[in-house]
């Protein structure tokens, strides 16, 4: 469609930026910073309304979810109800957002899940997650005890998955009242028991297109696929340059196509292997992998890519995008075959999402 516009929603350590282009995705303009340069961990759009939400937290003013109903031109914020009970450790920041079935979800640090049924004006704590019997034994990862991923089931409003570091994947089939850990098959090599019920350091989980029982996972210790809604995970890391990385992005239509961005390892700098950037793509659900490097820096690239900082768009061919800890954004308009730098010199990129309008 000639009049379609694609927005890249960029969360950064110093505010929200929005890059925009037409459907050709060759020329981009950048707007921002928005949200008063607050540190923002995740920016999403509700595709049914076009409303943009940004979750983060400010060292002075605490956590909030920002909202724009005019594609970023103006913003409001709220944290009404986004709080634990008096006496408990206060919420530090909002880490992840998700929209689905008319609801908006927010994951926070310390790990917990909140829901809004009025487009972010007010929030309610889904306390079933914190009532899980494992809660007293949850241990934080490097970024704290964060709920960093939320996946509403695309068809069933009662089902959702959340991801917590370093606790693992949890699933609810009843709207958040009860939860079960879904980590079987994913390793926790840093624990005495490498196969516990929970305690895995999940980094990112994405849902495959058109297969709501298929999930892909990048964890601290490997890459996995589940074909049974997370009940069992199987390694798909053979053929990749390392087992460590943060982001994952699913193709918008092909459930067998996944994009990862492996880093060199957790103890050796956490940048792209050999300081040469590559996105790795599978077309067969993780059986084989292809390095995609054309247009990406191949020397002296000492950046990482954070867990929410890679995304695909819904155009044909699909676009793929990632933002770096060094403040650059790279994009491909041809499913990863070739890349170009869309923006640079931004603050560290925490999240990348797309919105087609």
């Amino acid at each position: 469609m000639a009049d379609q516009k694609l927005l890249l929603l960029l969360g950064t350590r110093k505010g929200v930026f929005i890059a925009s282009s037409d459907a050709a995705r060759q020329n981009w303009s950048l707007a921002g910073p928005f949200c008063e340069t607050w540190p923002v961990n995740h920016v999403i759009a509700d595709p049914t309304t076009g409303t943009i939400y940004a979750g983060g937290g400010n060292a002075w003013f605490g956590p909030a979810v920002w909202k724009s109903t005019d594609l970023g031109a103006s913003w409001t914020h709220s944290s009404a109800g986004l709080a634990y009970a008096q006496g408990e450790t206060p919420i530090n920041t909002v880490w992840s957002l998700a929209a689905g079935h008319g609801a908006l979800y927010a994951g926070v640090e310390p790990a917990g899940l909140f829901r809004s049924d009025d487009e972010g004006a007010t929030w309610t704590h889904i306390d079933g997650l914190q009532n899980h019997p494992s809660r007293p034994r949850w241990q934080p990862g490097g970024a704290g005890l964060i709920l960093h991923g939320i996946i509403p089931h695309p068809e069933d409003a009662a089902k959702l998955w959340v991801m917590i570091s370093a606790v693992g994947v949890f699933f609810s089939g009843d709207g958040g009242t009860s939860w079960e850990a879904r980590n079987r098959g994913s390793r926790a090599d840093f624990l005495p028991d490498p196969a516990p019920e929970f305690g895995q350091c999940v980094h990112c989980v994405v849902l495959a297109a058109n297969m709501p029982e298929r999930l892909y996972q990048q964890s601290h210790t490997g890459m996995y696929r589940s074909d049974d809604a997370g009940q069992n995970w199987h390694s798909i890391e053979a053929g990749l340059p390392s087992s460590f990385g943060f982001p994952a992005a699913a193709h918008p239509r092909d459930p067998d196509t996944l994009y990862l961005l492996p880093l060199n390892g957790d103890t050796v700098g956490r940048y792209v292997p050999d300081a040469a950037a590559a996105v790795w793509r599978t077309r067969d659900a993780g059986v084989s992998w292809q390095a995609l490097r054309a247009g990406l820096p191949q020397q002296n690239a000492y950046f990482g890519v954070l867990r929410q900082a890679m995304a695909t768009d819904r155009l044909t061919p699909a676009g793929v995008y990632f933002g770096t800890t060094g403040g650059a954004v790279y994009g491909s308009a041809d499913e990863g075959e070739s890349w170009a730098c869309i923006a640079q010199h931004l603050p560290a990129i925490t999240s990348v999402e797309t919105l087609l309008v």
Partner: protein
Amino acid sequence: MSDAVTVVLPAALLALFPGAVRRLEIDAGTVRDAIDALDARWPGMRDRLCDSRPAIRRHINVFVAGERATLRTRLPPGVEIFVMTAVSGG
């Protein structure tokens, strides 16, 4: 007797609440009362200044007559309250 006190707000806070003013007079007997009055005028302002313990946020300073205050600090009539953002960040 009026309990009017003067509150001075930081610019970074004003930016979050359209229409908020830097300096205003309100009736309040404690810092908690003063923040409640601010929240009534600009809904959501309490959440920006206080956390859920509840307490003044760690990087927000409230000074009453030149001394750092807590939510319980009593306000003499006519006193000036300075709400300030701490030197923090990066």
